[in-house]
C-alpha cells in the first residue's frame, strides 16, 4: 500500500548497516596498524584465544601481546567512545539550539575542562600522590561546572528562558573561563607544553582504565541522546509550536544538554579537548543524508567513532614512531573532508 510513498528522512537500514560496517572496518584497521607489524593471523589467534578462553598458541611474544592488548586495543576502543560521544553530543547541541554551528564545547564544557586541567597541572598534586589522578577529575568537574554556570546565568535572565540567552550565557562563561585558564597558564608557563598538549587532545596514554572510566558515562549519555532524536526534530520548529505539539522544550533542552555534557565531560577528561569532531561529523551527515535528527544522531554515533579511530591511526602512523596531536589531525583531515562534502552535497537550501 506504500508503493510510491517514500517515507522521507527515515533512517534507512543501509545507512545504519553501512555505518556499522565502516566503524567495524576502522576498528579492525586500528588494531592491525601500528609502529610494529603484528601479523594479522597472530592478531586473530590472539583475539580468539581471549574470546573463547581457549589457549591458542598466538605466536606473539609477551611484549607483542602487551602492545596488542594493553596499548592498541584500549586506544582504538577509547577512540570509538570519544568519537561517538563528541559527534552525537555535537548533534544534540545543534538540535537543542537549532544551530548547525553548535558543538559540545559551546556552553563552556571545553573552557571549563581546560581551566580544570590547567589548574590541576599548575597547582594540583603530582600524579601518583593521590589515589585518583587529579587531572581527569579536575577536567571533568570543570566541564560540568562550566555548563552549569552557563545554565544558571542563562536562565536567570528575566526576559525569558530561550535558547538564545543560553547560548549568550555560554559564550560569556566560556570567554571568562578561557581568560582564567590563560591567566593561570601564563603565570605558570613552565606548564605551558603540558597544558597545550592536553588542549590539543591525545589518546596516547590511553589504557583500559580510561575505557572503564568513561564507558558508563558514554553509554548513559548516548542512550539519552539517541532516544531524544525525534524530540530534537520537534524542537526545530521553535519553542511555542513545539509545546503546542505536546512536548516541553525547556525540560527537553535541559535534559539533553545535561546528558550530552555528562558524556562530553567524561571523554574530555581522559582525551583532552579534541576539536572539530563534534561539528564536522554531524554536519557532514546532515549534508549527505537529511536534516532530521532521527537520522543524524544515530549515524553520528557510528561515523563519529569511526572518524576518530581513523584520525588516531593517522596521528600515530604518519610520523611514526613520533606522534601528532590528534586535534591537529581531526582538523587537518576534517577540514578538507568537510569541504569535499560541502562541494558534492546536493540540495543545499537558502
Amino acid at each position, binding site marked *: 500500500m506504500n508503493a510510491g510513498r*517514500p517515507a522521507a528522512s527515515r533512517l534507512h537500514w543501509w545507512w545504519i548497516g553501512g555505518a556499522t560496517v565502516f566503524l567495524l572496518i576502522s576498528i579492525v584497521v586500528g588494531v592491525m596498524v601500528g609502529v610494529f607489524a603484528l601479523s594479522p593471523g597472530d592478531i586473530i589467534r590472539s583475539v580468539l584465544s581471549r574470546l573463547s578462553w581457549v589457549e591458542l598458541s598466538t605466536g606473539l611474544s609477551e611484549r607483542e601481546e602487551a602492545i596488542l592488548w594493553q596499548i592498541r586495543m584500549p586506544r582504538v576502543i577509547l577512540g570509538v567512545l570519544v568519537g561517538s560521544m563528541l559527534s552525537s553530543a555535537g548533534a544534540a547541541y545543534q538540535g537543542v539550539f537549532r544551530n548547525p554551528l553548535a558543538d559540545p564545547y559551546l556552553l563552556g564544557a571545553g573552557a571549563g575542562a581546560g581551566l580544570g586541567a590547567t589548574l590541576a597541572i599548575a597547582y594540583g598534586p603530582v600524579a601518583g600522590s593521590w589515589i585518583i589522578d587529579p587531572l581527569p577529575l579536575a577536567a571533568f568537574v570543570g566541564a560540568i561546572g562550566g555548563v552549569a554556570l552557563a545554565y544558571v546565568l542563562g536562565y536567570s535572565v528575566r526576559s525569558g528562558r530561550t535558547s538564545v540567552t543560553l547560548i549568550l550565557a555560554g559564550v560569556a562563561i566560556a570567554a571568562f573561563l578561557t581568560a582564567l585558564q590563560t591567566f593561570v597558564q601564563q603565570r605558570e608557563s613552565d606548564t605551558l607544553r603540558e597544558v597545550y598538549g592536553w588542549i590539543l587532545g591525545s589518546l596516547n596514554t590511553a589504557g583500559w582504565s580510561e575505557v572503564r572510566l568513561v564507558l558508563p558515562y558514554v553509554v548513559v549519555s548516548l542512550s539519552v541522546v539517541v532516544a531524544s532524536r525525534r524530540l530534537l*526534530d520537534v524542537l*526545530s520548529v521553535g519553542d511555542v509550536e513545539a509545546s503546542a505539539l505536546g512536548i516541553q522544550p525547556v525540560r527537553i533542552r535541559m535534559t539533553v544538554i545535561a546528558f550530552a555534557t555528562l558524556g562530553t565531560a567524561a571523554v574530555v577528561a581522559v582525551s583532552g579537548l579534541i576539536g572539530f569532531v563534534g561539528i564536522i561529523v554531524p554536519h557532514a551527515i546532515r549534508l549527505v543524508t537529511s536534516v532530521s535528527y532521527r537520522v543524524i544522531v544515530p549515524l553520528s554515533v557510528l561515523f563519529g567513532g569511526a572518524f576518530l579511530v581513523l584520525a588516531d591511526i593517522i596521528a600515530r602512523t604518519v610520523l611514526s614512531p613520533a606522534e601528532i596531536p590528534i586535534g591537529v589531525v581531526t582538523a587537518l583531515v576534517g577540514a578538507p573532508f568537510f569541504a569535499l562534502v560541502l562541494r558534492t552535497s546536493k*540540495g543545499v537550501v537558502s
Partner: protein
Amino acid sequence: MNAIDFSHVSVVYSEHPVVRDVSFSVSDREWVSVVGPNGAGKSSLLKTLVGAVAYSGRVDLRGESATELRGRHRASVVAYVPQRSFFPPGMTVFDFVLLGRTPHMGPLASESRRDIDEVWEALEALHIERFASRDVATLSGGETQRVSLARVIAQRAPVLVLDEATASLDLSAQHEVLELIDALRSSHGITVVSAIHDLTAAAQFCDRVALLSGGELIGFGSPAEVLTEAVLREILEPSIRVIEVDGNPVIVSLRTQES
C-alpha cells in the same frame, strides 16, 4: 458539551491587562472567529488554549480545564497554527507533517507504521502528496499553509486554533485556505477557533464571531448581529461602511470625502 468554554478569562502581561474578564462558549464543530482591532487581545486569548500564556479565570476544552491538560494530552485535543509557522530549512514536507504525530507517540518512541499512514492521509487530504520530499523552506505561501494544515490533520486534534494563519497570504490564497479549513471542518469534524483580521472573510466563513476591543468582549453572536456599522465605527474608525451582499456583511473602509 461545548468544545470550548471561556469563563471570566483575564490575561495580564507584566501588570498590563490585555484580556479582561472574557466569557463565551464555542460549540462542537463550530467555527468561531475572534475579531477586533490590533492589540484587542485576540492572540492572547487564543494562546490560553495551548498553554502559551498564564491566565486567570477558567478555560475548558471539551469539559476539561485547559490548565490541567498537559503536554501530549493537550496536544491531542487542540492543534495550533501560528501566523507564521517556522519551517526548518532542509526539513521535508513529510517530516514536517510527521511532527503532528508527536502527541500520539511515546516521548522516546519512533514513528510507527500507523503514524506514517496518518501522515500520508493528511497529505492526501490537502492534495500535497507530491510535495512529500520537498524542502519546506522552498514552498510558496499557499503551499506552506497547506502543509501546516496537513500537520494539524495528522495531529488528529478535535479543536483547531488558527492565530492569524492567513494574514500573510494574498487574497486568493487566503480564500483558498479558508475554504480548505471549512472543508476539513466538515470532513474531519473539527471545531475551529481563529483570530482573523479580515472582517469580511470572518463574516463569510464563521458561524459566530467574538468581537474584542481593549481586551473586553463587546459582542458575541452571528456576524450579522455583531459586525454592525455602529459598533465598528466606534471601535475601529468612523469611516467604516457595512454593506450586505448575499446576506453576508461586507466591511469596507471608505475614504472620507471633504464636502
